[in-house]
């Protein structure tokens, strides 16, 4: 055996193990050169309006939309990502993605003064009232939260929490039912016809793209109050619109994805559209509807606390009042924020429990 092995003719020396692997193919050069040109164009654009040059933007007005700073830094980052992609043998499409991410990040970061603000953090931490503020937040004044009244009234602070919860409940129930209706109309599976479904989808995406603060301010104006000092109605209406958007979108997607069997059975049995939606579509999406409703309820608690900032009832209004007089101490704001965390945590646990029981 060993003799046979030793007698085997050695024709050529075997290469070192590991060196005979084929090298992975390099990506094509031409697209990469195009990407370098693209990066250079972007950098030259940024250099052109270095000092806040007004850029003609649409026929609607010229504005200082892009005020990137340190354009050489941006150019360096772009070249770096291209070199990195080339060394890692990323495909040109991937490198384009990386370049796009770097360009947008550079633009966004310089738009919000990223480096300046980060550089200022240590100075703020050591001096000024930032220290007092942070200390105040971590030493909340619980007696304020539990025993005091809203300034100038006889309403206790904890009553405001109750109002916030009530607003969330009302908005969730109404919003989820309207959202269910709209989701039925928006999905081509359960809708009247394609035209209806497209129209409802378009309306829904418009509703969804206005943020909840915008809705709250709009409804406050529509209801005739000033933005400050209005009842809960504006907040409830705003939350309803907010919920309609979310539920109609998510539930519409679930309806799109339901199993076609029951639908065909209902069609074969000669069901009308309403009967079909009632027996074939609704039971199929009921679990996800309940789960979305609970999710939306959690969102509503957070949102209704935040909406008070624009001047509606509930704990948010008190929060914004306390933020307004923050120069007298930070303990009250701290107490409200800690209580907000607690309430949100409890609502999360409650909805987790309901979800486990029901689904």
């Amino acid at each position, binding site marked *: 055996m060993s003799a046979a092995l030793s007698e085997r003719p050695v024709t050529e020396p075997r290469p070192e193990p590991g060196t005979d692997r084929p090298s992975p193919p390099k990506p094509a050069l031409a697209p990469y050169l195009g990407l370098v040109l693209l990066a250079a164009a972007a950098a030259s654009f940024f250099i052109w309006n270095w000092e806040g040059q007004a850029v003609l933007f649409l026929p*609607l007005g010229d504005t200082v939309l892009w005020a990137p700073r340190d354009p050489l830094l941006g150019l360096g980052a772009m070249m770096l990502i291209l070199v990195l992609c080339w060394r890692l043998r990323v495909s040109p499409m991937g490198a384009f993605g990386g370049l796009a991410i770097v360009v947008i990040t550079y633009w*966004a970061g310089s738009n*919000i003064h990223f480096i300046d603000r980060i550089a200022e953090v240590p100075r703020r931490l050591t001096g000024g009232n930032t220290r007092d503020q942070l200390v105040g937040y971590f030493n909340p004044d619980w007696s304020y939260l539990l025993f005091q009244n809203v300034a100038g009234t006889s309403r206790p602070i904890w009553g405001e929490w109750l109002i916030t919860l009530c607003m969330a409940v009302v908005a969730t129930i109404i919003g989820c039912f309207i959202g269910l209706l709209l989701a039925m109309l928006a999905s081509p599976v359960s809708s009247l016809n394609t035209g209806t479904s497209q129209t409802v989808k378009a309306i829904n995406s418009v509703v969804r793209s206005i943020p909840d603060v915008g809705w709250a301010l709009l409804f406050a104006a529509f209801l005739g109050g000033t933005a400050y000092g209005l009842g*809960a109605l504006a907040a409830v209406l705003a939350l309803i619109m907010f919920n309609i958007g979310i539920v109609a979108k998510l539930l519409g997607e*679930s309806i799109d994805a339901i199993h076609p069997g029951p639908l065909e059975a209902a069609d074969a049995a000669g069901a009308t559209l309403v009967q079909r939606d009632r027996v074939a579509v609704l039971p199929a999406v009921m679990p996800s509807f309940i789960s979305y409703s609970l999710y939306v309820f959690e969102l509503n608690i957070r949102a209704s606390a935040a909406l008070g900032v624009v001047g509606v009832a509930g704990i948010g209004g008190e929060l914004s009042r306390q933020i307004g007089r923050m120069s007298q101490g930070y303990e009250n704001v701290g107490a409200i924020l800690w209580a907000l965390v607690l309430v949100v945590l409890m609502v999360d646990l409650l909805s987790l429990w309901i979800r486990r029981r029901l689904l």
Partner: protein
Amino acid sequence: MSHGHKVASALVGAVLLAAGAFLLTYSPAANASDVFSRMMWGTALAAGAVTVALAVYGLAYAGTGRQRAAERRRLAASHGRQGYAPDRLDLRPIRPAKFWWNMALIMLGVLFVSSAAGTGMTLSALLEMPARVWDFSGQMIGGVAQIPDEDVRGDWSSAFDAMLESVAIAWIGTLVGALFSLPCGILAARNLTPLGTYIPMRFILSVIRAVPEIVFAVAIFIPLLGVGPAERGGAMAGAFALGISSIGTLSKLISESIEGVDQGPLEASRASGATHMQMIRWAVLPQVLPEVLAIWLYRFEVNIRASAILGALGAGGIGRLISPPNGLFGQRPYDWEAIGITLFVIIAVTMAVDQISGFVRHRVIHGKTVRRRTRKQAEAAPPPEPPRAVAL
């Protein structure tokens, strides 16, 4: 049979509710607060309504007693008969009683009425609303549709300016969240991490998820980074608040997608002697990266909407432009033309970003070749991806 259950359950529920409402309304605690007593009156009202409805229902039930008895006899007679009996076609399967379901619906109704009472809404304000909506919408549409002169150009450009600042805030926030969420997601995935790291990581993530982003903004980042327009640091505070609060959701979704990964490549890399890092790099990341990118893009869309509310608190972006102290809704009379222009810009930019990110997401997940499928193909194929509740 099922009728009996319904009546019994509703009756019991109504009596319980009425008793509870009565006790709570006349208890000393009810006088402590406006809200509370309002809620209790609402509960009593709702319980009364339920009782009246049940009384009507019960009277109707009692009134049809003879008819039901005849029906029961007829069915019992046809039951014993052999062979074809036309009446057997009536013998549908009996519906199961849904006691707790009915009770839950009744409770929901009572809860709704009582909390509607508790909020103290003045619903009469709704009557004046349509006229105002008509008037103001006309002004807003007029503002958008007019030929821009110098002032109006200023409105358009400031709206675009603020909205792009919002997009920048959301982008930086998503980037911060993305940078932290990939390692956190890996550390919170059960199949890659020992239990000693997994449990604390899960705990930290659920704490982050429970804290609303306005808390991060007001309590931590506005003191740390500043408040107001971008050059005074408000935008950075908003971006970091969004980023930190995205970490929770992003990491949870990412860890779920890592846990659903195909085991084959993991075993192969382990068998060929890969270290843990090498295994993550060559076996896990290539599988989850498209999905992770899609999750990040979802969060970007969400963050654009969320940045508005932070702007109202003093972190920059579109919220600062519209919200009261010195925004468009600051002093009366409102400039409805400018508001219309701003809303138009918000809707247009948000929808454009949604479209772009939806396109990129589709491209990342399905690749270049797969175009949008027609409806017939979509029905034949399994549903593509379940909607993601937590991501929104």
